[in-house]
C-alpha cells in the first residue's frame, strides 16, 4: 500500500472540509490534506448556483460557487494539499490512519496527526419515507435533480410535483420554473414550512407556485414514466384523509424530505453517535469520542446556513491542528449538555472544561414553532445565559453563547422559556 504522512487529514472537500483545512493550516499545522471523492472541491455548493450564501459571514449575497471559491482560493494560498477522485474506505482511530483509494496511487494509507470528518450528508429518498405506488422513471431527490440540471446539463422533467418544503425543494421549484418546467405544487406534511421563509417568498410566491401545507403524496402512478400523484390533506396525527384525496397530473416527482448525515466511516470506527442528530457526539472543539478525530459541518448535524458550517469547521480545523502539534487544551472535566423544554438537540453535545475560560456558541433546534420566547442556558437552577427571541422554528437553527467561567457543578440544560 502507498503511504503518505500528514499532520491533519480532512475527509471531504465541501464547505466544512475546506474551512477546516484552511483553519488547520493557519493554526500552524505544516501538512494538511483533503481527501475528496468527487472530481473537484466545493462539495454540494458546486450545484447550489443560487444566491443566499455568505450573508452572515461576508455581509454579501454570494452564490454557492462564489462562496466555496473564496475557500478554495484561500486553501491554495496557504498550501492545503488535496486528493480528488479518492474514496476513503476506513478510518483507524487508534493508529491515526486513513485508508483510501486513488486512481494514481491505488490503495493509499495516510498517516495523520489528527483527522477531521467532514463527509456532509445525503438525502432521504422515497424509500426512506415509503410512498406507495409504482416505480416509474421521473422520481428524483431534489439534490440529484439539482446536480443533473445545474452541473450535467440534463433537464429532469416538464411538469413537476415536489414533496417537502425544505430549502432544496423550494430552490428546485424556482430552478425548474426558470428552465421552462411547470411546477404544479409543493406538498408539505407538516402544517408549517420546513425551510427558510426567504425561500418561500423568492422561490414559490414569486412564481405563483402553490404550497400545500399539511398535505402528502399518498400514491405515485405511471408505468414507464410518472403520470401523476395522489395528494391528500393529513389529520392532526399526520394520517392522510382518504376521502379528500385528489389526482394531480405530472411527469416528475422531486423528494425534498430531509438529509441524513453520512456516517458510515464514523460508525465503523466505533465513534459515539448521537441518536437525534445521527452524527458524532462532539465537544466545543468539535472533537469526537476518539480523541484524534474531529468532525464538522453536516456530518455532525444538518445546518441550514453554510455560514454556520464554516464557523464550526474552523473550530474543528483549529483544534485538530493543535492536537496534531501536541498543544491541545487539557480537559479537567466533561459535561454533557441536556435538552430542556422545546429543544430537540444541542451541538456541541458536550462541554470540556479546561483552565482557560471560553465563550462557546451552542447551536440548537427546537421541536415545534413558538412565539415570544426566551432562550436560556441553565447550570443547575441558575440561568447562566439568556436571550429573547421573537419566534423560534424547527427549520431555523438557534444559537446562544455561554461563558464557561459561569459553569459551576450543576447539570447544564438548554431550554426555551415562555416570556411573560
Amino acid at each position, binding site marked *: 500500500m502507498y503511504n503518505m504522512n500528514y499532520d491533519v487529514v480532512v475527509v471531504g472537500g465541501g464547505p466544512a472540509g475546506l474551512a477546516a483545512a484552511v483553519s488547520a493550516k493557519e493554526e500552524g499545522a505544516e501538512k494538511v490534506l483533503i481527501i475528496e471523492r468527487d472530481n473537484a472541491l466545493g462539495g454540494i455548493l458546486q450545484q447550489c*448556483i443560487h444566491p443566499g450564501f455568505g450573508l452572515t459571514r461576508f455581509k454579501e449575497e454570494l*452564490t*454557492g460557487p*462564489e462562496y466555496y471559491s473564496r475557500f478554495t482560493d484561500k486553501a491554495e494560498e496557504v498550501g492545503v494539499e488535496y486528493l480528488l477522485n479518492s474514496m476513503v474506505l476506513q478510518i483507524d482511530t487508534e493508529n491515526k490512519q486513513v485508508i483510501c483509494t486513488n486512481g494514481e496511487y491505488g490503495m493509499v494509507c495516510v498517516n495523520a496527526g489528527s483527522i477531521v470528518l467532514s463527509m456532509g450528508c445525503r438525502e432521504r429518498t422515497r424509500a426512506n419515507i415509503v410512498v406507495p405506488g409504482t416505480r416509474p422513471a421521473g422520481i428524483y431527490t431534489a439534490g440529484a435533480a439539482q446536480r443533473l440540471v445545474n452541473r*450535467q*446539463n440534463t433537464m429532469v422533467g416538464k411538469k413537476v410535483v415536489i414533496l417537502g418544503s425544505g430549502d432544496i425543494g423550494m430552490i428546485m421549484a424556482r430552478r425548474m420554473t426558470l428552465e421552462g418546467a411547470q411546477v404544479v405544487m409543493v406538498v408539505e406534511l407538516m402544517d408549517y414550512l420546513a425551510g427558510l*421563509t426567504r425561500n418561500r*417568498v423568492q422561490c414559490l410566491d414569486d412564481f405563483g407556485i402553490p404550497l400545500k401545507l399539511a398535505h402528502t403524496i399518498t400514491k405515485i402512478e405511471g408505468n414507464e414514466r410518472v403520470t401523476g400523484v395522489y395528494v391528500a390533506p393529513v389529520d392532526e396525527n399526520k394520517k392522510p384523509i382518504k376521502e379528500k384525496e385528489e389526482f394531480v397530473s405530472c411527469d416528475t416527482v422531486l423528494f425534498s424530505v430531509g438529509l441524513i448525515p453520512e456516517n458510515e466511516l464514523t460508525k465503523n470506527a466505533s465513534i459515539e453517535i448521537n441518536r437525534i442528530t445521527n452524527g458524532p457526539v462532539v465537544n466545543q472543539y468539535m472533537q469526537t469520542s476518539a480523541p484524534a478525530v474531529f468532525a464538522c459541518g453536516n456530518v455532525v448535524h444538518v445546518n441550514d446556513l453554510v455560514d454556520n458550517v464554516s464557523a464550526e469547521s474552523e473550530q474543528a480545523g483549529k483544534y485538530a491542528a493543535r492536537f496534531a502539534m501536541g498543544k491541545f487544551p487539557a480537559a479537567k472535566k466533561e459535561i454533557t449538555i441536556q435538552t430542556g423544554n422545546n429543544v430537540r438537540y444541542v451541538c456541541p453535545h458536550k462541554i470540556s472544561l479546561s483552565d482557560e475560560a471560553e465563550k462557546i456558541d451552542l447551536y440548537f433546534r427546537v421541536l415545534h414553532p413558538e412565539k415570544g420566547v426566551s432562550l436560556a442556558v441553565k447550570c443547575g437552577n441558575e440561568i447562566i445565559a439568556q436571550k429573547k427571541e421573537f419566534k423560534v422554528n424547527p427549520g431555523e437553527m438557534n444559537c446562544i453563547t455561554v461563558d464557561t467561567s459561569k459553569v459551576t457543578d450543576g447539570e447544564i440544560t438548554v431550554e426555551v422559556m415562555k416570556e411573560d
Partner: protein
Amino acid sequence: MKKEIICTICPRGCTVVVDGDAGNVNSVEGYSCKRGLEFATAEFVSPVRILTTTVKISGKENDLLPVRSKSPVPKDKLLECMEVIKKASANVPVKRNDVIIANICNTGIDVVATKDVK
C-alpha cells in the same frame, strides 16, 4: 391597492401591508424596524431579484458555467432574461466576474460568471 409583503431581511419574517398604487406608497403597516420599512417599500414599488442560472460552454456538451446577474434585476423581467441566457454560450477559459452577457434585456445589468473554468 393593498399588498401583503413578507419581509425577508431577517428570520422574523414580518408580514408588512403596503397600500398604494403603481409607484406611489400611501401607507406601510406591520413592519418592526427601519430595514423592514425600506424593504417593503422597495418591494412594493419595484421588486428586484438576483437571477442565477447556467450557460452552455462551447465545445463541452456536459459542462455548464454558473452565472448570475451582477446586481438584482426587476422581478418581472426574470423570465425574459432567461430566454436570452438560454441562447448564450461561453468560451473557456473563463474567470469569475467575466461578463457573459452585457446589459441583459436593456436592464443595464451584466450577467457574469460565478466560477472559473479552464
